[in-house]
């Protein structure tokens, strides 16, 4: 589903590569933790999957497509198959829960009838039933992140990228977030989650890919966060 072959990324005005000859394979339906200290290249990895950045070297395949051969015109179609969740939620403050989730479908031109049917289902899936008409500021951090996950998943993407989704959330609430991610994973969606949260990684027992200074130092199925140390 995601295939990195010897990928190197150097940002302009920097001599140290953000990713250094990284090769990794993620299969369909896998749940992968991307761990490592700040600046180790986790976010760069996710940005490359979305084609927000281009690699200096190596090739990237996502959902069967070679990103180097994907024209800019087709990038939006790639992104429709990838859902994204961030540490800072990125909800629209002037829209309620329902509208925030529906927005993702409206802007890709889905018919209204389809939106009316799908959005409530996804809101229920993330455990926010009965809160569809709340505004983001009326929700807790954990609930806001559930809205963001609903928005990321509402178009049934093949891949879900999560960049430290529990970074702003207390440990107890994080468990609920992880349960939702697990539920999404069980529908067949590949989940790639970058995180610092050792407790979560240890409790989930999923595949762990560890980056350090842009290099993969560990790739372990059913791994834990700090085993290498």
């Amino acid at each position, binding site marked *: 589903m995601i295939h990195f072959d010897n990928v190197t990324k150097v940002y302009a005005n920097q001599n140290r590569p953000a990713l250094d000859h990284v090769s990794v394979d993620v299969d369909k339906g896998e749940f992968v933790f991307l761990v490592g200290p700040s600046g180790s290249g986790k976010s760069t990895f996710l940005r490359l999957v*979305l084609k927000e950045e281009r690699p200096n070297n190596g090739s990237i395949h996502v959902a069967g497509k070679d990103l180097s051969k994907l024209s*800019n*015109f087709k990038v*939006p*179609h*790639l*992104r*429709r*198959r*990838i859902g*994204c969740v961030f540490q800072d939620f*990125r909800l*629209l403050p002037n829209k309620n829960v329902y509208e925030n989730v529906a*927005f*993702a479908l*409206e*802007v*890709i*031109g889905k018919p*209204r009838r389809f939106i009316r049917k799908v959005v409530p289902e996804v809101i229920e899936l993330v455990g926010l039933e009965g809160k569809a008409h709340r505004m983001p500021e009326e929700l807790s951090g954990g609930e806001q992140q559930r809205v963001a996950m609903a*928005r990321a998943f509402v*178009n049934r993407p093949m891949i879900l990228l999560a960049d430290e989704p529990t970074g702003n959330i207390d440990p107890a609430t994080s468990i609920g977030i992880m349960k939702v991610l697990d539920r999404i994973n069980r529908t067949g969606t590949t989940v790639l989650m970058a995180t610092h949260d050792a407790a979560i990684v240890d409790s989930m027992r999923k595949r762990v890919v560890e980056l350090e200074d842009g290099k993969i130092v560990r790739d372990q199925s059913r791994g834990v966060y700090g085993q290498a140390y």
Partner: protein
Amino acid sequence: MRANFIFSEVWIGLRRNLTMTIAVIVTVAVGMALLGVGLMINSQVSKLTGFWSDKVELSVYLCTKGSPFEPCKNRGAVTQEEKGTLEQTIKALPDVEQVKFENQAQAFKNFQSTESNTLLLSVTKPEDMPESFRVKLKDPEKATAVASSLKGQPGVSNVVNERDLLQSVFGFMDTLRNVALGIAILMVIAATLLIGNTVRLSAYNRRRETGIMRLVGASNIYIQLPFVLEGLIAGLIGGVLSGVILIVVKVFIFESIQTYMAAPLGWDTVAGVITGTMAVGVLICVLASFVTLRRYLRV
């Protein structure tokens, strides 16, 4: 494509930047109105030129009793005999196409219809008006030569080349047109920059929305269209206002000087000018929006 969704986005954008939108509308309206006025003056001048080149080229004025002109001093009014020989002389000239005689009564009538000074009208009598030969030439360029050959003839008080008179009017209208077009160009530049700024502000205000749209895979057109439409709508409103200004200019200025112009500017020309300036206004707005978007809204 969901039309109502895009239009609600456009409406939000226009409302958020209301002052900038108004600035754009006013600039476009004034700029396009000036452009239109320039075009209207232009077509008025060319109409007049066409009209007058078919008309009298030379007026050969004859002496009246007590005429102040040098050749008429120390002699009375032109005699019937002199008129006869003069007409023969003019007709004999190779460049002359047609000669018409205008008597005092006709001259007085023309004077009455064109002069607006009531004091002058009340003291002028038909006997004060000079008789004249209106001479039409085969080749208008020969006017100066013909005029000088007729100047010395007995009974002639003065020879006026009507083109010279018109030339000064045309010169004034040319200046007017150039000033209008010059200001119009400046306004177009101002409008372009203003639209650029408005779109930039709009893109900044909506960076959250556009960021999410990018993320969930909205197509470039979907992301950019609301901004371009904002420019288009502002340009369209400005264009309509400029059309209104042009109609007012036509009714109150061109119409009032029409008595002197003899070749009225038709509504069909005005309609053409309005359509043209509106198209230019809208085009400028859309292009300016599009170019700025490329810079400030990375997709």
